[in-house]
């Protein structure tokens, strides 16, 4: 928990920093804490206790999932749910991968494609849109921004059915596009990008770029995008998680098993578990494996995300 916090993003320093990410900031959290009043031992241990309880609260289900995934079907109910019996994790994974010609692996790949590619496209679109709204003056700018902002308030669930009817008209249901296209829209991303671009991309720099003869597009992709990097990473992560967890849209759109994302596939299996008990182990192991890509993504990108949020907090 100790990477640097970005300095005030509007400062000239960020603009001068060639990497533009503001990682060169030197305000260490430790230094900040030393300056403030020290917390009493009691309140610190109180806080630690609360955090420990919550950590436990969040980790126990994952622990249970991990333990349950290592058990054979027979041991699932007959052994201690929070401790290991015969360790069968790898046999279980093998059986899961072999079931129905490896349809599970196909689902994982689909999820990575929907979430990974979708989040990249969504980030680029949201970044450009937010940047344009922040840096160009044109009639209707605020109206557009307010409409986009209104989009944040509409839950994706409420849009799923209208989207289905629309896609039916275009005969695009039960295709890759039925899930991918709605996923590349991120009103929240536009909002965040605009706020961030306003704060972190100085007009002077854009002027300089224009004087040097760079086109607007080139300015955006070579200069501005780097300044907005923390925000874009945040948008990417948010959107990645949103698409990964968006199960309702695939539920309504998709019928072909080979197009399912992993969340929906596991849900479909789970819904028939009473009738086909042999699926239980697959659902458990599948759930365990399906959180791995999310964890990896977070571990890789968390420091960018934290800097992004941190700078937002300072604003």
């Amino acid at each position, binding site marked *: 928990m100790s990477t640097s916090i970005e300095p005030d993003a509007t400062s000239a320093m960020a603009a001068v920093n060639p990497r533009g990410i503001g990682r060169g900031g030197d305000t260490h959290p430790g230094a900040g804490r030393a300056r403030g009043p020290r917390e009493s031992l009691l309140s610190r241990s109180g806080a630690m206790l609360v955090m420990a309880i919550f950590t436990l609260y969040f980790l126990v289900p994952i622990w249970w999932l991990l333990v349950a995934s290592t058990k054979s*079907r*027979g041991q699932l*109910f*007959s052994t201690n*749910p929070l401790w290991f019996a015969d360790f069968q994790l790898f046999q279980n994974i093998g059986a899961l991968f072999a079931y*129905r010609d490896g349809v599970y692996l196909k689902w994982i790949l689909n999820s990575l494609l929907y979430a990974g590619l979708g989040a990249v496209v969504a980030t680029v679109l949201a970044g450009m849109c937010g940047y344009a709204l922040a840096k160009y003056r044109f009639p209707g700018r605020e109206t557009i921004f307010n409409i986009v902002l209104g989009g944040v308030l509409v839950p994706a*669930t*409420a849009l*799923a*059915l209208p989207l*289905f*009817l629309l896609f*039916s*008209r275009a*005969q695009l*249901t*039960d295709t890759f596009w039925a899930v991918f296209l709605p996923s590349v829209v991120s009103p929240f991303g536009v909002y965040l990008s605009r706020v961030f671009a306003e704060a972190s991309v100085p007009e002077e720099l854009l002027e300089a770029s224009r004087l040097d003869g760079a086109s607007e597009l080139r300015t955006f992709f070579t200069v501005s995008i780097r300044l907005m990097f923390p925000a874009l990473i945040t948008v990417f992560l948010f959107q990645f998680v949103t698409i990964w967890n968006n199960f*309702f849209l695939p*539920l*309504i759109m*998709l*019928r*072909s*098993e080979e197009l399912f994302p992993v969340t929906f596939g596991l*849900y*479909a*299996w*789970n*819904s*028939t*578990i*009473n*009738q*086909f*008990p*042999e*699926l*239980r182990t697959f659902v458990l192991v599948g759930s365990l494996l399906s959180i791995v890509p999310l964890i990896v993504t977070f571990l890789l990108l968390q420091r960018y995300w934290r800097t992004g949020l941190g700078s937002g907090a300072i604003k």
Partner: protein
Amino acid sequence: MRHTKRAVTAALLTSAALALTGCAAGDSGSGGGDAASCEPAGEDVTLTFTSWIPGIEDAVAIWNEANADIQVEVQTGPSGNAGTYQNFFNQLEAGNAPDLGQIEYDALPNFRVQDGLEDLAACEDVVAAQDQFLDWTWGQVTLGTEDEVYGVPQDQGPMALFYRSDLFEQAGIEVPTTWEEYREAAVTIREQGGYITNFSQTDINQFAGFVWQAGGQWFANDGDAWTVELTSDESMTVADYWQDLIENDLVATYPAWTDEWNNAYNSGEVWSWNSAVWGANSIASGAPDTAGDWSVALAPQWESGDSAAGNWGGSSIAVFKGTDHLYEAAKFALWLNTSEEALTSLNQTAAIYPATEAGLELPTLTEGVEFYGGQPIYDVFAEAAAQVSPDFVWGPTMTQTYADVSDGFKAAASGSSTLGEALEKGQASTIDALEAQSIPVAE
């Protein structure tokens, strides 16, 4: 297929509400009884077929191999109530429903009143196939009408009594043949620290199976209007019986299908289960430590010497409105549910228990089952299947009825209400729901 009444997400409910308004708005346009004719297309056709049965592709592959001119594409999804039914309604609304779909018996009337199904009576082959099916399974797809057929029965869930023969023997209890004896056994078992069975607060279709066995009805449809009879005499008799067991702590009330429920069976705390034929697998997987200790007997009767059985679950293959290939779709549905090769495949891959007379004599269904101490348990279920009344009719809003009655049952299990009150509330709310959908209600 059985209802897996899992918690329906708020999301699904939202969509259901949206779809209902959508359907209501669309009815005026899409209504009309332009019954499709059942003629061969005379060209190669491709049918789409939605089912959530894992492994049904194997059976379809056999068909595709033999019928180059009628190819069937399998689509899949979650079980009916977990989303597939809602998808069907959405697709009907959007005009891109599959040709065929799997629909449980208790959901069929809902699709019927929404005008989502083709009447298969137009197809001679379907009408001619009636004799192959058990009377009551056929009754489940004619929906109480004289000459309309809204699906081809696929499987069934005749109910019998699963019991721990080892524990019953040790305790010196005869297998109860009447519900009165069942209660006496419950007292003895309770004295020994166990429970005779678990009363499920959520499996309302199991309770419906009890009412079915008692000769009761929950719904009737005279062609013009629906009658709702959740509080019929038989229904109340069943409710009072179980209410008494609950009040005297003679049955456990674990939430069904949970880990603690499995554990109650696995640890030998609960000694019997009044369940359908597919329950055989549920016990085997949920209570693996008890292998070899279970047996199956015909269900206890209300009157000594009676022979009646209830049914829990079962589904049909229906053809959706809007198909261009009624003839081919009906032909495939018939093959899937009557041919020996298809029924064998379905039984092997997904333990489907056929709805035809001949299907009950499949070689795999006459063998002894190891988990049940080698007892040929399917013989018992075949006997039970022949005892199921053909008169039981489902209502058009079963999802709502189940949910409301289940709320009441949960209150009864916790002691703050009774099963009878739950049925009375379910009766009232079901009538409200029907009227809200402009479905005529008698009385």
